[in-house]
């Protein structure tokens, strides 16, 4: 047993083997030329995708109803971002957990976002407004939180019932200043002013798109466009890109878990899948030390194919091969 084990284990020094001449620099140079030509050809034939980004202006012009419903939800604190939890805000129970491990909460609220203030009220207050909007802003600010909530809830419900979600066809009342504020925000968005306002926040240079992107993601317009491009989470979207391009095909395993149970319907899917992928990556890294897995190459004998020219000579009866069976 020990002798056999040792035979298997013995990995001789490569320098002890017969050699042949091998030109590494020439091999690399040829490979580089081949890859460069192949890349040039693929790029010429297939090009690359570059679909225009969605702006708050293009969204509000294309789907004013969706924009209005989203703006009302941001104001009322019921949008996806408003109820997201860390790192954007404190929403009890919103953070995902990996078993007992609450990493999302532990990281804390580091990118604080108050959707009513940041997405609706401040952009309105920062721009010159007609008297009716100034009055509406003052009415909102003077009302207690419970009243504000009642207004936005009533308006959101009414929008949902209106044909096509059209604000012009809303019936009923009890909305307070909400319709005026949201309609004005829609106007600003359509004029393109809101894009600048959300990004700049009084600065000149801007490289952080967190706020406008979160606002966009809260609506359903972006997702509708994405689904039409097979980019939905349940459409293997994480590894796809727009058009018929290969995308990030190497994310297939990560994407795969989202397609099956128990992940598919779990509220903790993201955390669970991240945990699982971290474990699998660690496993791949430490594969040389994992009994069983590290022996698969020897069992599968693909290596006999790879090294068949070696075995052709070494396996002669007088050869000195001790390849274990």
């Amino acid at each position, binding site marked *: 047993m020990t002798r056999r084990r040792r035979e298997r284990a013995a990995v001789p020094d490569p320098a002890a*083997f017969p050699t042949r001449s091998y030109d590494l620099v020439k091999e690399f140079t040829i490979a580089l030329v081949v890859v460069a030509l192949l890349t040039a050809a693929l790029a010429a034939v297939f090009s690359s995708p570059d679909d225009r980004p969605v702006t708050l202006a293009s969204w509000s012009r294309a789907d004013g109803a969706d924009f209005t419903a989203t703006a009302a939800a941001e104001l009322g604190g019921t949008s996806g971002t408003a109820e997201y939890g860390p790192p954007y805000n404190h929403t009890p129970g919103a953070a995902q957990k990996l078993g007992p491990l609450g990493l999302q909460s532990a990281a804390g609220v580091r990118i604080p976002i108050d959707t009513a203030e940041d997405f609706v009220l401040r952009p309105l207050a920062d721009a010159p407004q007609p008297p009716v909007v100034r009055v509406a802003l003052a009415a909102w600010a003077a009302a207690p939180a419970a009243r504000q909530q009642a207004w936005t809830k009533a308006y959101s419900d009414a929008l949902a019932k209106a044909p096509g979600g059209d604000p012009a066809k809303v019936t009923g009342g009890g909305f307070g200043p909400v319709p005026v504020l949201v309609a004005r925000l829609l106007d600003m968005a359509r004029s393109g002013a809101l894009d600048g306002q959300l990004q700049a926040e009084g600065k000149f240079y801007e490289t952080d798109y967190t706020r406008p992107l979160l606002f966009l993601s809260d609506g359903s317009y972006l997702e509708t466009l994405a689904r039409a491009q097979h980019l939905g989470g349940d459409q293997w979207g994480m590894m796809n890109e727009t058009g018929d391009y290969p995308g990030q095909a190497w994310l297939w395993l990560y994407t795969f878990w989202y397609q099956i149970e128990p992940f598919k319907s779990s509220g903790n899917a993201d955390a669970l899948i991240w945990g699982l992928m971290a474990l699998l990556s660690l496993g791949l*890294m430490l594969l*040389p030390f994992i009994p069983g897995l590290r022996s698969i190459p020897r069992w599968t004998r693909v290596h006999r194919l*790879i090294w068949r020219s070696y075995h052709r000579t070494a396996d002669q009866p007088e050869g000195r091969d001790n390849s274990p069976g």
Partner: protein
Amino acid sequence: MTAPHEPASRGWTGAVRRRAVAALPPDKLLPDTQPAYMASWIYVFGVLTLSSLVVVLATGGVLALKGPAWWHVSDAGKYVNSLHLWSVELFMFFMVIHLWGKFFMAAWRGRRALTWITGVVCFLTSIGTAFTGYLVQQNFDSQWIAGQAKDGLNSVGIGAFFNVLDFGQMLMWHIVLLPFVLGLLTAWHILLVRLRGIVPPIGAADPAHGSPAASAPLPAEGEAP
């Protein structure tokens, strides 16, 4: 130690040089021969991976020279962006074949575990680099990918520090930090390959001894150095 006829070189610099030359003398760093068993097309995929990495860095360099807005408005820019995209696809494709080849060769044997590990870290770093690349395209894809990816990263607390919605931060990761790390890892990986030499076939006997049993006690299969 210094060779007898060589004047002893002093100080830290001398020590580093002595150690570097002892570990990888020029004819081991760039040998013009290889063991005869290194005869299979699978060996080409390491070099192909390296070559495509060079093309990725060069095309990315041109995009950087002209700035992030250029390729959206210029036909030449669009072509350079396509070169960058397709060289990445080739790079990842070659790397995955390289990975599976090394797996079926159990190429971590004989004190080569660190070569395997640096390889896996190269793979993971490349995935991160490609991902941040998708985030900084400034198009619909970036918007959608950022919106989706934030949930995964936030769920394990990473999103609080690594904000995929922050274009400036992602651009820095993509064109500075990650390529730098990947470059270092790749250099380390390849120096390790040269240091240990190409792994002999599974079950190969030591030609110098005639019988593997005669070889000195050696680490168990896959054992670390």
